[in-house]
């Protein structure tokens, strides 16, 4: 192992330890915040372009302007809206 390799190995080790500590200490906090955000995002898509799923919401004129930004999320959004849920989902 050269000095260079040693250093990068140490760096990776340090990073891993940091990650593990983050995973134990705060990952769930960050995740819950993001989950809430994501949920709101889905609500957002629903109320602005719910007609994509046949929910009879007339899309206001300006919804269309938001469409380009939503394009990449449409498929995951649909999946989440339509996926069958189980009670055990709530344990996460």
């Amino acid at each position, binding site marked *: 192992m050269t000095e260079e390799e040693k250093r990068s190995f140490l760096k990776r080790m340090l990073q891993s330890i940091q*990650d593990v500590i983050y995973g134990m200490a705060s990952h769930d906090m960050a995740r819950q915040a993001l*989950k809430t955000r994501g949920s709101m995002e889905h609500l957002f898509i629903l109320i602005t372009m719910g007609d994509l799923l046949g929910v009879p919401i007339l899309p206001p004129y300006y919804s269309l302007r938001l469409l380009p930004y939503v394009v990449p999320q449409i498929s995951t959004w649909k999946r989440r809206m339509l996926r069958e849920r189980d*009670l055990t989902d709530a344990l996460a």
Partner: protein
Amino acid sequence: MAAVVLLIALAVAYVGYKFYAVKIDRQVIEANPKKATPAVMYNDGVDFMPASGSVLFGYQFKSIAALGPIVGPIVAVQWGWLPAFLWLMLGVLFIGWVQDYAAAMMAMRNDGLTMGGLAYKFISPRARGILLAFLYFYLLLIMGAFGAVVAGLLSNPVVPIGLLILTLAGILAGQMTYRWKMDLVMTTIVTVLIALIGIWLGTTGAAQDIVKAINAMAGTGDKHILYNTPYGPMTWPKFFWGIVALAFCYLGSVLPIWRFAQPVNYVSFWFVALGLVGSVLGVFVAALFGTTNVSFQIPAFVTWNQPKLGWLWPMLFVTISCGAISGWHSLVSTAGTARQLEKETDALPVGAGAMFTEAVLATMALIFAATAIAKPDGSILYDAKNMYFLKTGAGGIWMYGMARFLSWIPGISPAMGGAIGAIFLAVMALTVMQLVLRFMRVASAELVGDKIPAFKNPHVGTIVAILFTFLILWTAFWQRIWVLFGGANQLFAGLALLLITIWLASEGRKYAWAFWPAVFMYATTVMALLVVAWKSFVAMGSAKGAAFAFGNAVAGLIGLFLAITAIVLAIDGLKSLAKAKQKAAARAGD
């Protein structure tokens, strides 16, 4: 001896991971780092979100390590420390990691379904229904078993004030991070310091006097016994602190998660970490420098038949409900971790890695228990004259162990070490209890909310679950609840293993490595549950009052119910297994 046992545990973990788990992962499951996982494919920012392997290792470990690995071994040493240790090692090696890892893998390969969906898919619609009912009782037992431990911990005079201040520091941490938008490092330093001072304050005489005064409110000695249960007296402190513990859980369940549950957990994490790392090092420091007595005082083997707990088989295997294997983990693996793994190959270090680490933690608890049968002041922990009966709460043993093994750190007094240990334990228990309560609330809203709209109100569902918990807490002897909980928990693991077996068979993979553990878990736990049920029903007959009879009846019925549902599930499961095998064979023949 302590250091040797700990080293053996580490070695087993290493060897088991390196030479068994890795082989299964590569050869049987054929984990493929290039295959898109549900977390990546369905990344919806809510249910599915990828995270790195190391982060998830931390997450998984934190989520699975609760009271189980600590309380289990402490109780189980009553049969002798060797059987407990053997079960820990063999259990984790052949059963524990298999479940945790394979459950995550199974969920990942099935579009991120959780246990209910998997049971529906691989066994039958009925299986899912039974599983959910089973789950509710299982979670209720967690509440009861953990609640009792926390109540016991809180009645110790050095604990409540420290925990209260730590809770306040947690709330402050939430406020600082989310409302005041302060930097996390700053927040951490401030709040952990406050909590540390709080724990220290809790150990001072004045603070202890307050708690002692509360404990004495209903009188001391015989007078503070409120009533007798079939298993012994219900004391005022236990009654009172039980309420406090559940009130804490109630807040955690109904308040916004970022206001209470999460930041409190966050602050206490640093104490958990300090306790863990400190005491592992403490064991070695003690072994090398002889600062603490680390010779095992409980014999390697005590008895085949522990009068209070029962036969070594099956009861020991359900007493140690975590550390060797636990059904809880399959819930975490499927609903939590499987939806976050960004590479299939991460499942092994995360699922199996965390499980092996937990076995080491359980070994620590075993060492704490086996090295102390009495405190220096003469108070007895395990009664050497009487089959090494546990004379105190499991929490007390842990506190005492922590106190001793942390005392190598300059500045940490035994009282402080004990308090950290207690808070460590209480917080681990409360974390799981809050999660469980949240789940029970959602479950009741979902299951009966349409018929009884009141259950859609979060407070109603939570309060009902809490009332059930009180019922268990106040009528039953916790060691029995503990065994019931352990039974349910291990049975759930058996179920998960059965599901894994069917999944493996349906894909035409080797499944013996999951099937035989499933059989063993099934046989052991169903037997244990039946034994508990039988014992409870027998105890009903003894004329010790209505509460007695009621508590036993509840315990007995729960045990019986769980055993019956398990058998029904097993029958359905075996049928499905046969079908899966046929199908796979037919496919292979094509």
